[in-house]
Each structure stands twice: as structure tokens, then as C-alpha cells.
């Protein structure tokens, strides 16, 4: 069995992917052909060995520290962002990048023409762009003094968003709920924010988020008035703000 490909299956979390990188690196040094994948593969092939990797915090911390030390802080950020992407090959892209980067050092980040570097940067750029957009597109509703927002992002942007909102609204109780991942960022007024996973939203939440208060109405008035009719250009609007973002945005509710 030693000569066949080894597929390491990890969970959808940064720690799990880092653990798989740790194990993968060891197997690779034993001469194995290693591939990483997130979640059960649909098309398991007959001649590969499959192994599930459980997240191991100790290993994950070691890998993260070694990226910062042996490659660069910039690489660490890029790897973290890439891990938040939804592409099934993200773990493999990270692994391929890291095997190369451990040899070449920090300057590898400038080698934009290298396919492994280019793939990793493409993944991280997508996540970083989506995070940036959500900094603007998150809409809070005042639910009895607590600011509540629901988002359905394609990438897992919540871990990257929390700091910005905590910095912006230090004195508010706020919560942002990622409905796709059942994940929430929760911030008590004056405290630290944190992530809570496997949240089951109260069925009443939807109703509360749709209730229109004074400021929701005023905001819609503003939004509908600010457009210059003689420059109307829905195509441009759609390019800048694709329809899927609009689902949870106050001004696009009818």
C-alpha cells in the first residue's frame, strides 16, 4: 500500500486544514504522494488510501507558527484567507503552496507567475474582496437594543469581519449570523467578540429582521432618492452589487 496515493480528508476549519498539512508533510517526507481534501470526496478512487484527519490544536499551532517564522506574516494571512474559501481544492492548494514556500522562503510571495502561488493568491484575494464588501453590505437591525444582522456569504468571512465591527461599534451589543454556516459573531457591549458555531436561529428572528422601523423607512427613502434618473444604469449597479448580496439588505426589501 505504501506506493499508492494518500488522501487526507479534513474538516472545514483552519485548524483541521493545518493539522492535515502537518500530517501530510510527514507522510510526504516518507516518500508518499499526498493529497488534501476538505469533506468527503464524491469520487473516491480505488487505488488511493483515504484517511480522515481530526483537528489537533497543537499541530495546527505548530504549522501556523512555522509559516510565520520560515515564510512570512503575509503568507500566513494569505493561507488563513485561502482556508476560508469554499473551493473544494483549498486544502490541496494550501499544501502545494506551503511545500514550495518552505523551500523558497518569504520571497515566494512575489513569484506571481508560479501556478501554486497564483492559485493560493487567487483564493485569498477572493476571500479578502468578499470580506471587504461585507464590511459595507452588512445591515444591522435594532432588536430591542441589540444590533442583529444576517448574512449569507459565499466565503467564510465572519472570522475576518469581527475585528472591524468590534473596532467600529465597541459600545454596542451586536451579533452577525452567517445562515449558511450556522455561525455567529457575537459582541457584548464593551467586551470582546467571539465566534459561536452550530447556532440554531430562533424562527422569530426572520420576522424581527423584516420588521420595518422608522430608520429602515428613512434609509429606503434616502436610497431611492439618491439615484439620478437620467443616469439610470441597472447593469452597472448589478456589476458593483450582484443580486445575491441583496437578499439581506434593507434597501432591497420590498
Amino acid at each position, binding site marked *: 500500500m505504501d506506493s499508492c496515493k494518500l488522501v487526507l480528508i479534513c474538516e472545514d476549519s483552519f485548524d483541521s486544514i493545518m493539522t492535515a498539512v502537518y500530517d501530510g508533510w510527514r507522510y510526504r517526507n516518507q516518500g508518499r504522494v499526498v493529497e488534501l481534501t476538505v469533506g468527503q470526496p464524491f469520487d473516491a478512487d480505488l487505488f488511493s488510501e483515504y484517511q480522515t484527519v481530526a483537528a489537533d490544536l497543537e499541530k495546527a499551532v505548530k504549522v501556523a507558527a512555522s509559516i510565520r517564522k520560515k515564510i512570512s506574516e503575509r503568507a500566513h494571512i494569505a493561507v488563513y484567507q485561502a482556508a476560508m474559501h469554499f473551493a473544494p481544492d483549498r486544502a490541496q492548494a494550501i499544501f502545494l503552496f506551503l511545500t514550495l514556500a518552505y523551500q523558497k522562503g518569504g*520571497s515566494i510571495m512575489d513569484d506571481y507567475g508560479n501556478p501554486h502561488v497564483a492559485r493560493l493568491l487567487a483564493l485569498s484575494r477572493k476571500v479578502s474582496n468578499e470580506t*471587504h464588501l461585507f464590511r459595507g453590505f452588512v445591515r*444591522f437591525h435594532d432588536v430591542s437594543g441589540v444590533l442583529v444582522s444576517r448574512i449569507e456569504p459565499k466565503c467564510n468571512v465572519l472570522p475576518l469581519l469581527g475585528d472591524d465591527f468590534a473596532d467600529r461599534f465597541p*459600545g454596542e451589543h451586536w451579533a452577525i449570523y452567517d445562515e449558511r454556516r450556522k455561525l455567529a459573531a457575537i459582541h457584548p457591549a464593551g467586551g470582546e467578540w467571539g465566534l459561536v458555531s452550530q447556532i440554531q436561529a430562533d424562527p422569530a428572528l426572520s420576522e424581527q429582521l423584516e420588521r420595518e422601523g422608522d430608520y429602515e423607512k428613512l434609509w429606503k*427613502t434616502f436610497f431611492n*432618492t*439618491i*439615484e439620478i434618473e437620467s443616469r439610470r444604469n441597472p447593469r452597472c449597479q448589478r456589476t*458593483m*452589487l450582484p443580486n445575491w448580496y441583496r437578499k439581506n439588505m434593507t434597501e432591497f426589501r420590498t
Partner: protein
Amino acid sequence: MESEHTITRLPKKAAVFSHQGVMPLEEKLRILTDAAKYDVACTSSGVERRGDGAHMGSAAACGICHTFAGDGRCVSLLKILLTNVCVFDCKYCINRASNDVPRAAFTPEEVVRLTLEFYRRNYIEGLFLSSGVIESPAHTMELLYRTLFLLREQYHFQGYIHVKAIPGAPPELIDLVGHLADRMSVNLELPTGEGLRQMAPHKTRKTILRPMRQIQQGIQEQRLELADCHGRYCPDRRADVGFKRRFVPAGQSTQMIIGATPESDFQIMKVAESLYQGYELKRVFYSAYVDVNHQLPQLTDSLLRETGGADGFYEKRGMASPPLLREHRLYQADWLLRYYGFAADELLSEEKPNFNVLIDPKCEWALRHLEQFPVEVNRADYYTLLRVPGLGVRSARRIVAARKHGKLEFADLRRMGVVLKRAQYFLTCQGKMLYATKIEEDFITRQLVADGRTELPPVEDGITFRQMSLFDDRSFFAEPDVESERSAAYGQL
């Protein structure tokens, strides 16, 4: 106030104040948003400020767009007028004194409440406050000051604030406001003093340029005060020089109206260039003239007569609606001035005073300077790469960084995200072009125009602008290019 003698009447003022307290906030917001929407700038960029850990607000240097209106423009700030009552009678402006439009006025407290509650819900990045001139420039500026003072000092709001300096307001007030705002702007309104005299009889070039100069000097002085002995910016010195906030940290901007008066693109670019160099502006915005007051036929007549005629200037431009494509070309050229090291004289001249409709200004420049092409990707310096059509700042930087790791091929360029659609005619990789193409003006022009056309989107309903229709004008739709899209996405338009 030097403009005071020109004030003939205070229109609808009584009506406004009889409405006070009666008119619902929503109605006021509608009127004062509608009155503010022709202002171009809505950017929240230029200043990075982390929150203070206790009060609401922060600012991001890149700017953040919070939504996009139906005209495709980014909405980043709550853009409103404090009041649309105005003693001035500018012909291009919807709020001119002689217009019969509903008038309203916010109290400073109302603006503060709207700003804070919108900000709390993450609708906006901050406030963009402008105003019609109510009673006098000084009185108006004082109201603006009171609003900003409440936001910053009473509610400790840390978000972004852009405020207009009212021409003719006392310098002390402008100074006070500048220490509360992030960005200030004075509208140039029209590219030349002649145009201003025609369109805005109550404004003079002098009253506009004076506050602009004052803001520039304020920024300069502070730069000196905050510099250490090596001339480097040193924020720790802030306490020594005795003020809490920096003066206009995000710099100043201005805007001018395009297409209301018969200036050429060359004249406009020269004005923009001198504003960037002489006044150190962060941005000049161009606003395609929207004929809100149905002035154009009269205007065209009188202006053309008085300026000696411009040979069917408007007919050629078919000014039935805003000259959006012209505006787009000016923005492209503006980018070339600010980030690509071009001078206005390189792009246009007295003999060739206007931009081409079919190709962008950089392509146009390259086609007139084919002797400098093709450029070798592996050897050309950064500034030479920047001048290649289709290569932007990001692409040029990546090329310069990546080629340290080895010789680059076209496949490498593609992988690093360089778009070769236009660049392929001007580049070689290790001596070879992508395809066997001739470096010949006619050929490349044909290719560029054809490429542009196949990718032009269908014309949407309601878009009827046209300008210099040389061929079938359906294909002259101004589609934002990569730079404009990026800039718009990051709130820098």
C-alpha cells in the same frame, strides 16, 4: 460678505420656517437628498482611523461602499444638504433661488440623529454635508460647524465626515470646521472663470479659490508642525502643538461640471492638472451636466454667441442628455495624471483638444507613440510598463516583482492576472509578441476598436445619451474599465 450686494431676495425662506416642526423628517430627507444627489463625490477614503475603544466609529483608508444606487454610483456617505434654501441663482443648479421647488431645512440635531442611527445600522460610512446658502455664507458655515461640533464633541462620532466649504465664509469658521472634518471640498463648479460668470452670476473664481488655498495652507502648515527634524510625519507631536484633531486629514477635493459650457477636454485637463499641482487636491471630480433647469437651448445660444461660437459644439455632442462617455474619458485621463505619470500636454494639445470616443486616452497616446513600442516585459522599468495600454498599477507592480524569480512568458502574465486584450499589441516576452501582429497604427486601432465593440453590453432601457455619433452609436456605451470598477468598488470614484 462680498456677495451680499448681489442678493436680491430670500426665496421661500418664510415657507421653510413655517414648515419647521410640521414637515415630517421623512419628507425633509426626501427633499434634501434629492437636492444633494447631483454632487458627485461620495468617497470615504483617504484616512485610516481605528476606533477609540469607547465611542462609535472608525475610518478605512481605502473607503467602503455600503450600497450602490440604481445609477450604479457607490453610496458610502449620507449625502444630504443642510438646507436647499439658497440665495444664489446658479443656472445649472436645481436649488437656484429662482426655481420653484419645495424647500426644507434640517436642524443640526436632526442631521446628527440621522447620521448616528444610519451609522449604527451600518448603512453608511459617515456624513457628506453640503448646503445651499441660507441668509449668508457665514451663517451657513456656522450651521455646518454646529452640526459637526455636535457629532464630534458631544457624541464623539469617529466615522468619516466630508463637508463643503462655502465660498465667502469667514476663514476662522473654515479653520474650525477643518479640524472636525476628514475631507473638505470647495466646488470649482465650471472649468473656467468665463463659464462661471455665465452660469453662476453670484460666484467668482476668486471666492472659490480663496478657501481652497486656505485649506491647502492649513494642511501644509500642519505637515510642518507635525514633522520631526527629518521632515517625516510624526503624530506624537500632536500634543505639543496643541490640537486634538488633524486638519482635513483626508485632503480636499473639488468638482466641475462638464458639458454645460464649451470648454475642450484639453482645457479641462489643464485645469485639473494645475489643481493637483498648485492646490494639492486629492481628487478632482467631473460631473456630466444634467440639464435640470432646461437651460440648454438658451445657454447654448447665449454662450456660443458670447464665446464667438464653437462650430456646432453641442450639435456634434448631441446634448440631449448627460455626456456620460465624455465624463468617463475625463476620469480615465485623470487617473493617468495622478497615478501613471502622464502630463496633460502629452495626452492632448491645442490641435487635438478632445479625447477619442472609441478608444481610451492611454491607448490613444500609445497609438501616437508607436515608436516607443513594443516594450519588453522582462526588461522595461516600472514607469515604462505603466504606459502600456491595458497594464495598470497592480499589473506593473506584479511584473516587476515576479520577474526577479525568472524570465516571464505570456502564460505567466495570464496567471498573474494581467489582462492581455489591449496589452498584447504593445508587449514582448523574451523578444516575442503573443501573436504575430504588426506594430502599425491602423491595424492596432482597428483591433482595439473591434475588441471594444464585441464586448460592449446591450443598451439598457432609458439610456439614451449620445455624443459625437460617428458610427452606430449603440456601441459607444461607456462601460467602466477595470480601474474605474476597482475604484468604484473601493469607494474612490
